[in-house]
């Protein structure tokens, strides 16, 4: 029954939720530590120096992780459900497809990036080891290596959550390697590091600082799609707080310091490139090995979370776990095989647009769980689409959630254009994510009073 449950979207029984704090922390840490940290650090390094940038980024990451924990944590960890199932009380028995679409697009995007990174790093590693000739053309190899990575992940996840935990136990060592790389750069180039001027710093010091915080918040808000599938393996909400905040929130800024430092001093966030400068080819090989391992662990977790989320679709509920994995991996493989360079170039824009939605989504969940429902969810209603069920709302959709989500997205974009980073005056004081979250929460709360007055949404039964 354990194997079936953790490969399904069904709520887990207490006897099936066997991950203690250390096991959960290991898995979350392995998931969060990936080469996207370099990109995050590089982005912050465009606006802020090493110390101030590191502090702003860390603060932002912890705030973002707090919001994700409050949004998905109580429902997922208390009822043993994944992030998508946890949105049914807010979005409705059919409206949950909206967060599901956001989850799918987000995870496909992240997974594609990570596997393209993996493939590119594997090519460089083979060149550094002498397996491939210097200057070997990656255009042919990257698609093949992406396909190979998808195959390995497929085989690794055949056993469900237990295999995710086993992968994490092995790959968590790469986090130590990442910290070692950071130590190397900081210890050998400290004077340059603290004196470096960010390449694209705004004349407004506060704007730069707020942007560092915003980048941190946005980075950890991206964990919302991943988190439910993992924390539901823990026995209760109390057991997930520290693992989530420290296991998932802290590694991101720590490892992002690698990209931040590299971008400031060596004008490159890619440690494989600057480690060759700092420590020679041996260090570069170690770094490439780290990158390869880091992305593997994170992609494995993302594929698992995606597959669990797909179980909420009626057409996929009874399909085999193998089918779910294939459905999840095929889009990632296609991107990596057909358009890797194009995707790499446009990825920043793609993700910026995705991130706009997760702050409002968290706001809706937080206000719904803590204020409107006061922690009372109908576990049966989450799994039925029968007419008259508490979460049917109107035709399976809760207009309050949809309107609130749109309102939050609108507030975000009004404050900060995620593509151009043009901003409104208020942004420098408020960020964009926090007002978007508050706006969505407020709109949702107000409209839900009307929803509740009409007897919809299961509020009266709570």
């Amino acid at each position, binding site marked *: 029954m354990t194997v079936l449950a953790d490969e399904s979207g*069904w709520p887990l*029984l207490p006897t099936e939720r066997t991950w203690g704090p250390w096991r959960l922390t290991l898995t979350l840490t392995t998931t969060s530590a990936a080469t996207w940290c370099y990109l995050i650090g590089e982005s912050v390094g465009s606006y802020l*120096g090493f110390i101030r940038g590191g502090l702003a980024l860390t603060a932002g990451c912890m705030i973002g992780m707090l919001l994700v924990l409050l949004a998905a944590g109580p429902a997922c960890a208390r009822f043993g459900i994944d992030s998508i199932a946890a949105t049914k009380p807010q979005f409705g028995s059919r409206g949950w497809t909206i967060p599901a679409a956001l989850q799918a697009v987000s995870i496909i995007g992240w997974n594609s990036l990570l596997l393209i990174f993996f493939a590119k790093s594997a090519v460089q590693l083979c060149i550094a080891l002498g397996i491939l000739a210097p200057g070997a053309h990656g255009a042919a190899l990257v698609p093949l290596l992406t396909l190979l990575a998808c195959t390995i992940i497929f085989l690794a996840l055949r056993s469900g959550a237990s295999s995710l935990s086993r992968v994490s136990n092995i790959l968590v060592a790469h986090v130590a390697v990442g910290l070692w790389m950071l130590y190397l750069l900081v210890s050998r180039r400290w004077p340059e590091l603290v004196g470096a001027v960010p390449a694209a710093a705004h004349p407004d010091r506060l704007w730069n600082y707020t942007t560092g915080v915003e980048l941190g918040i946005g980075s950890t808000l991206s964990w919302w799609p991943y988190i439910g599938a993992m924390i539901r393996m823990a026995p209760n909400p109390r057991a997930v707080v520290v693992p989530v905040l420290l296991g998932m929130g802290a590694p991101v800024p720590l490892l992002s310091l690698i990209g931040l430092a590299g971008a400031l001093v060596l004008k490159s966030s890619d440690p494989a490139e600057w480690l060759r400068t700092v420590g020679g080819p041996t260090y570069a090989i170690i770094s490439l090995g780290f990158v390869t391992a880091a992305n593997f662990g994170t992609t494995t977790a993302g594929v698992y979370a995606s597959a669990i989320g797909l179980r909420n679709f009626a057409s996929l509920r009874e399909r085999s776990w193998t089918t779910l994995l294939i459905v999840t991996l095929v889009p990632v493989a296609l991107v990596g095989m057909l358009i890797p360079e194009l995707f790499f170039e446009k990825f920043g824009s793609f993700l910026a647009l995705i991130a706009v939605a997760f702050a409002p989504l968290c706001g809706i969940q937080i206000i719904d769980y803590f204020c409107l429902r006061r922690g009372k969810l109908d576990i049966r209603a989450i799994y039925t689409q*029968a007419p008259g069920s508490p979460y049917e709302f109107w035709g399976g959709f809760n207009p309050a959630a949809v309107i609130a989500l749109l309102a939050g997205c609108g507030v975000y974009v009004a404050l900060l254009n995620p593509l151009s980073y043009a901003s409104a005056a208020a942004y420098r004081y408020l960020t964009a994510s926090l007002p978007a979250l508050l706006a969505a929460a407020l709109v949702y709360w107000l409209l839900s009073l009307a929803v509740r007055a009409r007897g919809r949404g299961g509020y009266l039964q709570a």
Partner: protein
Amino acid sequence: MSDIAPELEERIARLEGDLRSAAGSDFDAVSWGWIVTLGVVLPAVLLLIGWWYPPGNY
């Protein structure tokens, strides 16, 4: 007629029994202490230090 599969129905029934007996099993006081410390106090302290302490504009 329920659209829930029998195995899922059985699972939900067991969970509902567990949840009734474990009312109020959300975050406890210790959990909220960690949440406030790591999610509110720590970021606030870091932001203050980051704004005032490092010399220079960047």
